[in-house]
């Protein structure tokens, strides 16, 4: 019995909360509720300005419109659709994925994959060993090859980390330590 009272009590509190919130929403939707939708829309007249931060008078009226529509119980999708119908797809922060607009979503990943493929090809050629004669045969301007820039070590074909004298010494010190 005692338990039932408890459960009923908790249920009542929940109910009070839920209805209270529902009632609070009905008369005037809060600024935050309006902004939540406005931030997903772009001002139909200004360039690249989200509707929630646009300071112009026109945008104030649009935000007021969102508030009214919310008060009428319209959903987020309804409101967005209303703006698209009246002002075109440019009010959306991203184009709807229809028709030509598909390209906006497909091209970047496709291009990136092409890049990955090219990189893969490059790595593959790296792995295949090439005869040293190929390198020796490539025409070069020998007179330019031997000029070292001030402060840098001359370049050799098999330069590795050990080649950098300073780094080598540093590495050696570290090895002694451990």
């Amino acid at each position, binding site marked *: 019995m005692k338990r039932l009272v408890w459960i009923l009590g908790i249920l009542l509190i929940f109910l009070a909360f839920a209805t209270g919130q529902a009632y609070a929403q009905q008369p005037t939707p*809060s*600024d*935050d509720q309006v*902004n939540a939708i406005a931030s997903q829309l772009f001002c139909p007249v200004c*360039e*690249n300005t*989200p509707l929630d*931060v646009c*300071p112009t008078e026109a945008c*104030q009226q649009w935000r007021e419109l969102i508030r009214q529509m919310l008060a009428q119980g319209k959903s987020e999708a309804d409101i967005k659709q209303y703006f698209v119908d009246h002002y*075109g*797809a*440019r009010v*959306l*922060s*991203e*184009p709807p994925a229809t*028709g*030509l*607009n598909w*390209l*906006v979503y497909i*091209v*970047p990943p496709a*291009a*990136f994959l092409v*890049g*990955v493929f090219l*990189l893969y090809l*490059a*790595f593959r*050629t*790296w*792995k*295949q*060993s*090439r005869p040293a004669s*190929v*390198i020796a045969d*490539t025409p*070069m*301007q020998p007179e*330019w090859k*031997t*000029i*070292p*820039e*001030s*402060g*840098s070590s001359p*370049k050799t*074909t098999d*330069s*590795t*980390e050990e080649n950098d004298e300073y780094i080598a010494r*540093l590495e050696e*010190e*570290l090895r*002694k*330590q451990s």
Partner: protein
Amino acid sequence: MLANFGFGILVVTFLLALFGAGAAIYGYFRKKDRWVESGRRAVLLTFPLVTLATLSLVYLLATGHFELRYVYSVTSNDMPLYLKVTALWGGQEGSLLFWSWLLSAFASAVMLRRWDRDREFLPWVAAVTAITLAFFLSLSLFFENPFVSWWQTSSGQVASMIRPAGASPLIPTDGAGLNPLLRHPGMIIHPPMLYLGFVSFVIPFAFAIAALVTGRTDDRWIRLTRRWTLWGWLFLTCGLVLGMWWAYDVLGWGGYWSWDPVEIAALMPWLVATPFLHTVMIQEKRGMFKQLNMILIILTYNLVIFGTFLTRSGVLSSVHAFAESALGPMFFVFIGITLIASVSLLIRRWNDLKSETAFASTSMFSREALFLLAALLFAGILIVCFWGILFPLISEIFTNQQITVGPPFYKRAVGPLFGALMLLMGVAPLSAWTYGTLKTIGRAAWKPAIPVVIVPVVLAIFGYRNVFALIGFTLIAFVICVTLYEFGRGIVARGRSAGENAILALWHLVGRNRRRYGGYIIHLSMAMMGLAIIGIELFQTTTQQSLATGDSMQIAGYSLRFDSLSQFPYVDGRTVTRAVMSVYKNGQYLGQFYPRYDMFPDDQPMTIPAIRSTLSDDLYIVLVDWEGISASEAPFKVYDNPLVSWLWLGSFVFIFGTLVAAWPDKELSVAPVIVHSAYKASVAD
């Protein structure tokens, strides 16, 4: 009078730049050094000349010569002198002249260097800089002339360089004034930095073209332009960060970056220049990636011009604006010609640019491979940006439908790529050249990786459950640990070998390899900026409420009480509405803050936020004009922006790191002599 003088000077400079390019190229092909020298001097002379023209315009701006259309459109009597002067870059015509001026400065400076060892580069460096300069000067001369005056004719007012028949001069008593958003201290420094960044990349490009034409395709051009590129990169990055700060400080939308096409236009050259700075190191060290480096520098140059085109031609607002202004097609043609010319040169030299080193033994986890991977990731970000800007134009052309490609698109695409770059920034410094394997990386990385493991655990215990944030913070911690570990390792090693104390060891360590350790400092700064970006992107909270006087609102532990509101006119004609808010955090009084709403005479409003910055978060208060502000009730929008201060702190560390890497060598005065004899010896062989 002075306007005519300025215009005349521009005409002369334009012709001189054309002559310089022509003489240098003629001299190169006919092997007549006198012509090359003549071309060099012509380019050298452009700087003092464009300076004269620019100073004329600055004088006219500062003294309020409103009979000039440009002066009229960007200044007014009530503006302070510093804004009148900086209005030089406050509008289209002035910006282009300013661009030309900076370019002439760089072109002249590079002409002054010692050319004796690289004489064959000279004609083409002179020609490329002179042609670019001539192009920008032609825009000022024929399309966007800053020296055009107002005239009163019988049929109305006209703006023209030459007095129309029967017209009388028209001298307005006051100007229209600068766009209110530009009346900010950021105006002094942000555009020049960005333009400097843009312009300085013309120099490495010119050397690259010279290398391609002359066939001297070793890494000489890279060594010569290394510092130009670094300085340019420094300016560009500073320009970008200053733009962010300006937007954050003045626009009142709670953020610093809105993925606006103009912002992206400035970011794109950076996205190519950054991997370029890395891959040139590999060309210097191993003779690899010559083709890639050429591609990157050509892209950087064209993106610089493209960025200027995007922001200056009006094409972004609508494709139709492109056709209205003659500027758009001019840029289009210039970009086309330079791109085709440089790419065909590149193709001609493609085989000469094959790597000198056999790739055979280069492993997939070597530093070379990781740098190449980083370049790919940057390219990915570039593609997203480029396509995001371009697609609305394509859509308008083909379907006549205007669409927006906004922040959600970019964030989704770019977020993981930046995350992967962060990972590489941690791994690459530990990887070995050429022979690196997963094993060697693991062996090098386990020590600095230990403290990193704690980060996600601690964050999770403290209730952070956002997966992206956990990954991001962990990656950042990894970069920081690796970088500090690298410093620590070097200090200990030096301390042992030379018996130095830690500070002296650090000093010598950095001094011995400033490029390397300057780069590490830059990595640290990027990690700091990454903190801010994660903070604001993933943890920003905001709320908006109308408050009656004496009422309070709450956000993120702060309580803000609306005390009072006042309205007063300001000297420059705007009406300032200023609210006073008392802010408390967890019951502790923090002080009063004053968000403002300024209305300018031309009905342009501006919301100026009140910001309280700490290392952990920014409280960002905006007085918004929704249902109208009154003394008894006003609407406030408040943001809590976690960690955003680290963006500005990181930028200072960034500047420091770049200066460490780019500062001229002390022994430079001695070095040429030694090198010169070595060179002679090698030729004698």
